[in-house]
């Protein structure tokens, strides 16, 4: 069974701080996606990484796929209150396998 472990599960920080969320597995995935979900809404895709070692940037968000395609990280620089939400990683191995999510709260 393929599993994805996200850490931390909860993160509460002040506006302007940096943070990193980790997504780890013992399994290899063809790709890894990061989603953001706000209360009462479905997840929205932020990025897909496919190649081992790949780094993608989306404004203040930096996503990295591990060399062995078993892990990924999301780094947010100078977090804003608008970044608040549930961040989910999902690995593709025939279907999407989701991590349990990281609940991020950014206080002004």
């Amino acid at each position: 069974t393929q599993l994805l472990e996200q850490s931390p599960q909860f993160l509460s920080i002040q506006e302007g701080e940096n943070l990193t969320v980790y997504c780890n597995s013992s399994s290899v995935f063809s790709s890894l996606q990061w989603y953001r979900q706000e209360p009462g809404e479905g997840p929205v895709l932020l990025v897909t990484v496919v190649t081992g070692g790949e780094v993608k940037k989306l404004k203040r968000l930096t996503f990295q796929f591990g060399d062995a395609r078993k892990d990924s990280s999301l780094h947010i620089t100078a977090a804003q209150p608008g970044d608040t939400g549930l961040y989910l990683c999902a690995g593709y191995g025939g279907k999407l396998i989701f991590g349990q999510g990281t609940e991020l709260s950014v206080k002004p």
Partner: protein
Amino acid sequence: GAGVSQSPSNKVTEKGKDVELRCDPISGHTALYWYRQSLGQGLEFLIYFQGNSAPDKSGLPSDRFSAERTGGSVSTLTIQRTQQEDSAVYLCASSSQGTNEYNEQFFGPGTRLTVL
């Protein structure tokens, strides 16, 4: 509308009753997925449709759960004899092609099911 829609948005039912949850995917999307999300948790895959066929229904938790899709569009997830542990948000997603590593899934807002 342009996005995935789900109905009802909220459903409260009594233990033992049957419920039907509906999903309207984005027009033209051939693939449709159902997931279950418990409070503050990640998404648990339930079933995948390609057209009207379900090549992967491995995530359905028990035979009380069933789903169908008609006309390559609307899908209904049915839970019979609901139990309290069925309480969760049920999310539907659609995509323009079959499942693959590049696939972007577009999610609906979900149906929050509460079983009393």
